[in-house]
């Protein structure tokens, strides 16, 4: 290594360079003129649709994207208008939002918090998106929600089921239409009691991450309130594809119900393993062995095929519902894409319309105005019946569906049948419920 003695000239030179470097940041202190982040100035407004297009939930993501595109069409007055005709709020006219044409950009969350945030950031910073919608994982939802809060845009969550999204991780700029693990437990418990009796011994297999734990906690709490006993709760690594080693101990544990707190590919594999081991044909404690999958989706049901027959679970929404909102949405989705929508698609569609409607009613795109318009908003006509966006935690309250794997499906889409529509009152809870406490909404942030 060469050494150099310090010269006067050298010191001056480096001093000048360092000085320029230090002075440089002062040019950033000038504040900008916009009232809030990405205020739309032209004739159009940009929404950001951030969904998993690759990775384990890619199918759900693509379904969400289809629904979001449909929502944009309906907002711009193209197509048959879908739920705009059934929605109880009549603020939307089919001429865009506040007279501005709706445009959208898409991004890939890859179901990774980091990638999702990068993609959302680029939509906000580069494309000027004023609202971010979509996603199929609670981890991603919480991460993106935090980003939107910091950046000063609205986040309308897609599929996210963990309690934390509107619990300890809730944010003023974030809203969730989807139901959560607590509601699953509250809706399932009475049906389980009716079908299986009050003296059951349950064994839980839980995906070892945030969502899995909150769901396990919720289901354990609500089943134990019934009088059930929890024999054991076992965490399984998220990356597992073979669950046989976790299923074998179930047989000798004295349990007579297996609860699978798994989602997506995990659930498909664990359920398949359980069926292969013949759990459903077993008799334990003098009762028929049963399996429960607390969170269902159409795509999982399709993946598990025959195995889901008779297995109980819960859902946010199903295309077989008979209310006007559902019928209108299923009709326009079906006519455009030739298949019924999944419940993740429906939640994204509803969220986009709800956002647009809130902007219309607030008369501004300013996030603080939108937050105010959405808080404690009561509406109907988007499916699920009368719905309430609670102001205290930005969680939607509506009826929850208990479904069962169809014994005799007639086509590829009715693999699930609705057992019961649990009324909203039964799944409501206090915002300070211990499973949800710990966070605070904070102040709405308009950015800039």
């Amino acid at each position: 290594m060469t050494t150099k003695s310090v010269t006067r000239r050298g010191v001056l030179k480096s001093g000048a360079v360092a000085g320029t470097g230090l002075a440089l940041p002062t040019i950033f202190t000038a504040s900008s003129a916009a009232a809030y982040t990405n205020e739309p100035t032209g004739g159009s407004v940009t929404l950001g649709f951030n969904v998993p297009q690759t990775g384990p939930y890619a199918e759900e993501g693509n379904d969400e994207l289809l629904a979001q595109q449909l929502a944009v069409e309906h907002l711009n007055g193209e197509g048959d208008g879908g739920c705009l005709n059934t929605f109880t709020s009549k603020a939307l006219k089919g001429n865009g939002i506040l007279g501005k044409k709706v445009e959208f950009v898409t991004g890939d969350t890859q179901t990774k918090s980091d990638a999702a945030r990068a993609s959302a950031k680029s939509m906000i910073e580069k494309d000027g998106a004023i609202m971010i919608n979509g996603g199929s994982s609670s981890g991603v939802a919480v991460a993106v929600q935090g980003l939107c809060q910091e950046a000063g845009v609205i986040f309308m969550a897609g599929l996210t089921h963990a309690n934390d999204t509107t619990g300890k991780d809730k944010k003023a700029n974030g809203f969730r239409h989807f139901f959560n693990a607590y509601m699953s437990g509250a809706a399932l418990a009475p049906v389980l009691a009716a079908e299986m009796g009050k003296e059951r011994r349950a064994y839980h297999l839980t995906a070892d991450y945030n969502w899995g734990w909150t769901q396990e906690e919720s289901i354990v709490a609500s089943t134990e309130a019934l009088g059930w006993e929890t024999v054991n709760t076992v965490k399984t690594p998220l990356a597992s594809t073979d669950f046989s080693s976790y299923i074998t101990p179930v047989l000798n544990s004295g349990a007579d119900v297996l609860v699978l707190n798994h989602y997506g590919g995990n659930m498909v594999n664990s359920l398949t393993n359980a069926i292969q081991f013949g759990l459903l044909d077993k008799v334990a404690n003098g009762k028929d062995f049963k399996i429960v999958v607390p969170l269902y989706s159409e795509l999982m049901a399709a993946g598990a095929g025959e195995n889901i027959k008779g297995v109980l679970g819960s859902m946010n929404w199903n295309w077989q519902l008979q209310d006007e909102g559902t019928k209108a949405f299923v009709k326009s989705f079906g006519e455009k894409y030739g298949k019924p929508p999944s419940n993740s698609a429906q939640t994204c569609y509803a969220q986009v319309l709800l956002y647009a409607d809130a902007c219309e009613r607030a008369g501004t795109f300013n996030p603080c105005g939108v937050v105010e318009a959405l808080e404690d908003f009561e509406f109907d006509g988007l499916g699920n019946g009368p719905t309430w966006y609670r102001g205290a935690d930005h969680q939607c309250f509506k009826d929850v569906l208990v479904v069962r794997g169809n014994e005799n499906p007639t086509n590829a889409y009715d693999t699930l049948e609705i057992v019961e529509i649990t009324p909203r009152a039964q799944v409501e809870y206090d915002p300070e419920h211990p499973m949800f406490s710990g966070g605070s909404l904070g102040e709405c942030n308009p950015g800039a």
Partner: protein
Amino acid sequence: MFGLNKKDTSLLIIVGLLTLLAPFILNPFPEGSAMAQFNAGYPDLMQRFVIFGIFAIGFNILFGLTGYLSFGHAAFLGVGSYSAVWMFKLLSYNIIPAIALSVVVAGLFSLLIGFISLRRSGIYFSILTLAFAQMSFALAYSVLSNPKFNLTNGETGLQVYADDPQILQVANSPDLPHLFGLPMRATYTMDVGAWSFDFNAGYYLCAIIMMVVFYLSIRIFRSPFGMMLRAVKSNQQRMNYTGLNSKPYTLAAFVISGMYAGLAGGLMAAMDPLAGAERMQWTASGEVVLMTILGGTGTLIGPVLGAGFIKYFENIFSKINDNVLHSWFAFLPDGLEDAVVFVIHPFIGKGWHLTLGILFMLVVIYLPGGLVEGGQRLLNRIKRKKSKADDAKSGKTEPAE
């Protein structure tokens, strides 16, 4: 200047100019034009360019000089991010302690992993580092995030909550990462006609740090220590036979590159205060290998170019969807338009991996030295043409005696 020879000095100056003027260079297309899709001059991506540049520069010190191929460098990046976010949670949003701790922790962690992994070389070394990185990923993803001992917050990623202690947080200081009050998110937008250029505080901070570590890496390359590392690469056995113990050298290189990765991780958290476990996954480790090879292993500037190349694809190509394509080819007749979109469709949007893969193959097959070799060949060709032209000219004007 700064103890560098003329060639290295000019390289440093070129890199300096490129990073300083990046907001202009990366935004060549006017806003609102069809080509604006290809603009990369927005703060988040520019920050990523330089942060992954730092990561790759560090990786190159290990892989480029010693030839030890580590498949677990993302672990150090992740550890750096986690320690930075913990500093935000415990002390304050000032980024100085966060970045300092991230470098230190990554250094210690790499010392531990390096000490064990460097007992083997070649493929065994790669597998060992890969195993350690996957182990760290699993720890961060579930084991260390259980409700009783929550160090990483698992799948959601570690973030700062309102009820965190933040004992050094002064009143009125920004509620997001800042450098003595200057928020990293602060951006000054300059509108020039149809163009708009973003100057972001966080980007310039990263850029300055990258210049410093780039300079450091040049010094390492040119030092006797660097020579020793090269000797390890060319023939470690012979080196051992001559009585030299190569282990301290390789371990030092491993720790230095681990600290570079930690620095990159710390900066990532400083730009966006969230640390996700995915940044420790093996795909992230593989990415930095790709960056280095794509840019040019063992060259000074190669890794930075490779990092920029891959991040550009990840962020720009993945966002082109069918709607954008249709708007580009709207001038074609309907049937033809659909056909063109159908052909291009697999290569854009979620298919960006495919495009990147093809380009990677082409580079590795035709330019084994990476993008740097491509640049050199181009330069040589131009030079040769010029000198030929000169020869021809002089041949005409200077008659033989």
